[in-house]
């Protein structure tokens, strides 16, 4: 691919990366909320699942922009192999490879979800669990690669994303203790 030496590409790559992390976080939170069968009087359950699906589509778009701009930018110097495979890189250490690995796991999650009607629920679900490995890798990639490390807003975003995931996980795990909680029931 021809390299472009244009600061806009560079900014686009960083910006789309941050947006992808935020959207990915929201998707994971909504996914966990779906398994917890979250709903309120105003917010039926299918809203959670519907948002989980449509926001994941949006996240894929931003991830596509992030990868395309990383490949195109002459300053970032990312090769196609480095973007797709978990390889160590002289410039970025392991951080770039973490992003690539996160991408690979995510690709498996997305492909199985698109073909969900053609496979057993069990296979789909086991692959879907990879999202729990993909998110921390994406997070480490974002924070560790460190382009915006010095910026306060970037750290705040990272902390907010990690905090949101942690709180949602605890909320989900608490529900495991009671297999027939109130939010599930219809009648008394």
């Amino acid at each position: 691919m021809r390299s472009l030496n244009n600061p806009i590409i560079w900014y686009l790559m960083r910006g789309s990366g941050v947006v992808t992390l935020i959207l990915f976080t929201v998707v994971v939170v909504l996914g966990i909320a779906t398994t917890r069968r979250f709903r309120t009087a105003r917010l039926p359950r299918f809203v959670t699942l519907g948002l989980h699906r449509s926001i994941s589509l949006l996240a894929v778009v931003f991830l596509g922009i992030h990868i395309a701009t990383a490949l195109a930018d002459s300053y970032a110097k990312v090769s196609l192999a480095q973007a797709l495979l978990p390889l160590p890189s002289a410039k970025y250490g392991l951080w770039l490879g973490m992003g690539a690995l996160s991408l690979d796991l995510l690709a498996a999650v997305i492909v199985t979800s698109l073909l969900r009607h053609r496979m057993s629920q069990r296979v789909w679900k086991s692959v879907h669990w990879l999202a729990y490995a993909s998110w921390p890798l994406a997070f480490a990639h974002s924070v560790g690669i460190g382009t915006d490390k010095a910026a306060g807003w970037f750290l705040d975003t990272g902390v907010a994303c990690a905090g949101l995931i942690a709180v949602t996980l605890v909320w989900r795990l608490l529900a495991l203790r009671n297999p027939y909680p109130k939010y599930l029931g219809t009648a008394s």
Partner: protein
Amino acid sequence: MKLRVNPILCDGYGHCAELLPELVELDEWGYPIMPREPVSRSLEPAVRHAVKMCPRLALSLEKRAR
């Protein structure tokens, strides 16, 4: 066309009853009760959407009632 549920897959998430209040009711344990009658033409798009939204892929819209 008839709406069917695979009771082994269904986990009682209840999305179907939320999406198709005209057709699906939940029993007291939260599992769906399918309508006996075939799905009317006008409701078919809504039913197809519900089939896609079922988190367990337990719903199907079948040509003829078995």
